[in-house]
């Protein structure tokens, strides 16, 4: 059923359609609406789940870990400072191999105090063992949550997944979202029934002291699981498309076949970039766009395949790894190096702290790449 809703509500309904049984969350702007809607859905009896109010984001994730370990499908949502406060337990959830799904509203990190769009929060949690999806629009938010449970709960994956949506550009923007019937959703995503769980009738030890004899293998198992996850994400994206008509993958190529300049983008900037590609092509410029939808596991193979014929690769990062460059830029270059592809690359930092990345800004970025030295980082639109 098609309706109009903002990105926060799309996340709430994504959790409801996924039939989550446990929600623990702490409100933070601009994620607050997700939590409010979920508490309303539970209170109204539309969502049959326990809703637990907690005193912090750390507690929210800790509560989800407990519930998920007991064999229940859980959901939480946060943003910015809240995600950072979760850091310790994010690691715990992943290493305990608990397929929790979290919606994170990408918001800048303080100070200066900011509630606006920026991916620094989730990028700084890159190495916690969570899979990361970056949504382009509200439909993507909703669909990605449903797919996230299917991927995360796969017995050969068992890793948590974070679905990221840009502050305000999605969280507070109303768009058309096609909601899935509960019955159809259940066919796609059956009830959660893990092989291992906390059960008084069948006691097991979880999270025990792990000597150097075994810890290493635990990490190796996560490496294996991430490799499997790459295939599962593609597979589940296709299966989802076959059933619901909307196809997803780890990356999405737009007009790259004959493109000399390929933009590499994520989140809402990817959508605006596609619009820019069409406008720039009308001016005779051969431009394309590669959207990175999934950042962890990192889709190196797909990226290499998409970029191999490009003359210029222009990566737009709404984040900055202090002392180096944009996080996506580093990793894209790594993938190209592995494939022996020596292409001119440009690291473009744009849109930090909610600065708007319009089609005009993207045009500026393309022009900047055409006229600047390659293999360098540029901050776009800095006021001097």
């Amino acid at each position: 059923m098609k309706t109009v809703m903002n990105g926060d509500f799309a996340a709430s309904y994504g959790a409801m359609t996924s039939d989550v049984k446990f929600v623990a969350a702490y409100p933070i702007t601009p994620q607050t609406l997700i939590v409010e809607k979920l508490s309303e859905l539970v209170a109204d009896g539309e969502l049959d789940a326990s809703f637990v109010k907690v005193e912090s984001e750390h507690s929210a994730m800790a509560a989800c870990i407990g519930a998920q370990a007991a064999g229940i499908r859980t959901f939480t949502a946060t943003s910015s400072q809240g995600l950072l406060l979760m850091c310790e337990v994010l690691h715990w959830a992943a290493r305990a191999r608990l397929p929790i799904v979290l919606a994170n509203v990408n918001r800048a990190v303080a100070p200066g105090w900011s509630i606006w769009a920026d991916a620094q929060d989730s990028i700084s949690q890159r190495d916690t063992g969570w899979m990361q999806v970056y949504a382009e629009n509200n439909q993507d938010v909703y669909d990605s949550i449903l797919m996230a449970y299917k991927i995360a709960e796969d017995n050969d994956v068992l890793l948590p997944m974070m679905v990221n949506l840009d502050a305000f550009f999605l969280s507070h923007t109303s768009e058309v979202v096609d909601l899935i019937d509960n019955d159809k959703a259940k066919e796609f995503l059956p009830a959660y029934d893990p092989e291992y769980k906390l059960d008084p009738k069948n006691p097991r030890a979880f999270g025990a002291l792990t000597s150097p004899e075994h810890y290493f293998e635990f990490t190796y198992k996560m490496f294996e699981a991430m490799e499997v996850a790459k295939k599962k994400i593609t597979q589940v994206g296709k299966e989802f498309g076959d059933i619901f008509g909307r196809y997803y993958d780890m990356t999405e190529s737009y007009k790259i076949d004959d493109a000399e300049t390929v933009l590499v983008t994520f989140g809402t900037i990817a959508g605006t970039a596609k619009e820019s590609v069409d406008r720039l092509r009308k001016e005779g410029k051969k431009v394309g766009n590669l959207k990175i939808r999934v950042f962890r596991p990192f889709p190196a193979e797909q990226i290499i395949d998409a970029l191999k014929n490009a003359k210029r690769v222009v990566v737009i990062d709404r984040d900055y790894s202090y002392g180096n460059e944009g996080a996506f830029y580093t990793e894209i270059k790594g993938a190209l190096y592995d494939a022996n592809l020596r292409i001119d690359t440009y690291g473009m930092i744009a849109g930090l702290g909610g600065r708007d990345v319009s089609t005009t800004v993207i045009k500026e970025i393309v022009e900047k790449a055409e006229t600047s030295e390659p293999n360098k980082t540029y901050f776009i639109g800095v006021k001097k």
Partner: protein
Amino acid sequence: MIEIRLHGRGGQGAVKAAEILARAAFYDGKVVQSFPFFGVERRGAPVQAFTRISDDVIRIHSYIYEPDVLVVLDPTLIGAEGVNILDGLQENGKVVINSSKKPEDFDFHGKNGIKVFTVDATKIAIEHKLGSASAPIVNTAIVGAIAKVTGLVTIGSVKKAIFDTIPRYQEKNAAAAEATFNQVK
């Protein structure tokens, strides 16, 4: 794709107006997007809200800089310091102003093909007891006028959108929209 930018003051309901307009277009079978300017809202301060209406998927996620249609909920914003309402307005663009004046009273009417339309939404809102007499809420009323002069949405869908968006006094709000639909010049 048609891009609409609404200018109002905090408390007038510009954000809701953008949402009602989008929802109405959705009921008419269009693809839509609406959002507020992402700022810190204060009552009385200038605010903006945006609506995109399209036949195809809307990929763009950024503010509207070159609108096809401008909507002004408070005429005192025209010429106010730090606010340039007409910024980026397309040639042959339409401007809907909540004002008791005539379109010809605005010096940009007719320039660059710009067409101004006026309706006294404040008076209509007060008549329908929307908000208070000193701070009337004109958002639902103005959408009726937008429907009439742009033809982007039907008045029936506007009324349905009002019923689905506004929590209280839906009848009065829908009646106000109908009144501006009939009175806009």
